[in-house]
């Protein structure tokens, strides 16, 4: 036990925690993105609302989500600890410092980018996670005719809604759910919220362009074939594709809906 303690109190041990929590957050991003792609389905939000219910009520996912919240907190705490220790390691700063001559901008600004991300995460959780659990999310009923595939939807009064249900009655599939889709569509009519989300995704992009491959370096990978692959995934997958896809969501609601 004392061995573990001195492992994680060493600078390398702290870096290991940063890398593992960071990579765990990265895997979550992929899952979160795939789920959120349901927003682009032109079905009045049915698939998205089903997905939101599943994510909040399926036990294994709930367990993972608590792991996720813990990871965010631990990642941010260790980032703060390491950043403070690094400041202490150079109390008098250089009069001239040409950082751009020897290192990429992203790598020198992980703390700032992470702070923007933290603000984003707090705003994002209060917009949707808090609203979905305890806020005022409207209710919706979908009726899908299983022979024609036609879906109609009606808003439900709070009094008429008990719990999420899905059942088939006379060849019609009836779904009653919390309408998080409507909450989302409504939230993204506000221009500054859209701007904040796009900014958050820009920070995510820059954080991961460095962070993803950096985590593998911290873990000790230096393979000739795989490291270039990791760098590619880090830049194009986590640095470009994923943030772009996320940023497309608020923009889609603002401009297209």
């Amino acid at each position, binding site marked *: 036990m004392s*061995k573990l303690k*001195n*492992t994680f109190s*060493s*600078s*390398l*041990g*702290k*870096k*290991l925690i940063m890398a593992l929590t960071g990579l765990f957050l990265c895997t979550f991003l992929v899952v979160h993105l795939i789920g959120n792609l349901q927003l682009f389905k032109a079905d009045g939000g049915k698939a998205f609302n089903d997905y939101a219910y599943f994510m909040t009520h399926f036990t294994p996912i709930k367990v993972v989500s608590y792991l996720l919240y813990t990871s965010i907190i631990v990642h941010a705490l260790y980032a703060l600890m*390491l950043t403070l*220790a*690094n400041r*202490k*390691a*150079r*109390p*008098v*700063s*250089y*009069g*001239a*410092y*040409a*950082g751009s*001559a*020897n*290192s*990429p901008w992203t*790598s*020198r600004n*992980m703390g700032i980018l992470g702070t923007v991300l933290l603000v984003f995460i707090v705003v994002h959780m209060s917009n949707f996670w808090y609203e979905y659990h305890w806020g005022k999310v409207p209710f919706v009923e979908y009726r899908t005719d299983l022979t024609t595939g036609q879906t109609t939807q009606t808003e439900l009064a709070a009094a008429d809604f008990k719990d999420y249900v899905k059942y088939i009655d006379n060849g019609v599939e009836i779904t009653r759910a919390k309408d998080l889709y409507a909450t989302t569509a409504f939230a993204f009519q506000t221009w500054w919220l859209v701007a904040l989300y796009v900014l958050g995704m820009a920070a995510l992009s820059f954080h991961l362009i*460095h962070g993803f491959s*950096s985590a593998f*370096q*911290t*873990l*000790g*990978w*230096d393979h000739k074939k795989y490291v270039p692959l990791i760098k590619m995934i880090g830049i194009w997958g986590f640095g470009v594709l994923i943030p772009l896809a996320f940023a497309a969501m608020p923009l889609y609601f603002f401009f297209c809906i």
Partner: protein
Amino acid sequence: MLSHIQTVNSKLTTANCIHMSGNMNLTLKVWRQPNNDTKGSFVNYPAQNISPDMSFLEMLDVVNEDLVKKGEDPIHFDHDCREGICGMCSLHINGRPHGPKQAITTCQLHMRSFKDDQTITIEPWRATAFPVIKDLAVDRSAFDRIQRAGGFISVNTGGVPDANAIAIPKPVADEAFNSATCIGCGACVAACKNASAMLFVSAKVSQMALLPQGQPERYKRVQAMVAQMDEEGFGSCTNTGACEAECPKEIKITNIARMNRDFFTAKFFKQEEA
């Protein structure tokens, strides 16, 4: 060789240069600090009639000769071999350790790398673990203590072993040799925004971890050296790569990956040897 001759003849060279055309006039913005307990500040000095063929240290010699003549305190800076092998010279020049060129030390930097009339900012390596001795000279004994913590192998001295008695694949030998070229100058610490010593320590860990002779103490060594590194107050690595870019011996950050791997192996997978 050239720099050798120039060093020996530096007085002569400067004397000869006075009337030569193409010489430069520069302004030096130099960090002066009496000791680690006193606050330092920048002081400007003119450097006149400087030959572009001088090394940076020779240029400072000229400025110092002037200061001594005027009865002023000369600028203190570290140096020894003046041919890029000892690691003694330092200096953060215009925001970069060892100046604007890649893969050289300050003693190998020539004044032709600067422009006439340029202002050159000269600072010491800045790190808690490298306290200022005076002006531009810093105490790098933290590196010695890290080495003493584990940067060695314990062997019996005895008869000379047969050549090639221990087989070492060529790529491994090359890699170990590359790691061993670290001269302990501290430019990696100076360049790093976190003042991290990871490149130095990982080079010293690697040169032995790669070779058969280094195996018996491999996992003990990495833990001891990392512990000493932390103890000295160096920052932690954020993989910016600044160290690799500024290292005069082009030590690669793959050494850092290797050290991390060995450290985590020791801590998590190798109970019996650790």
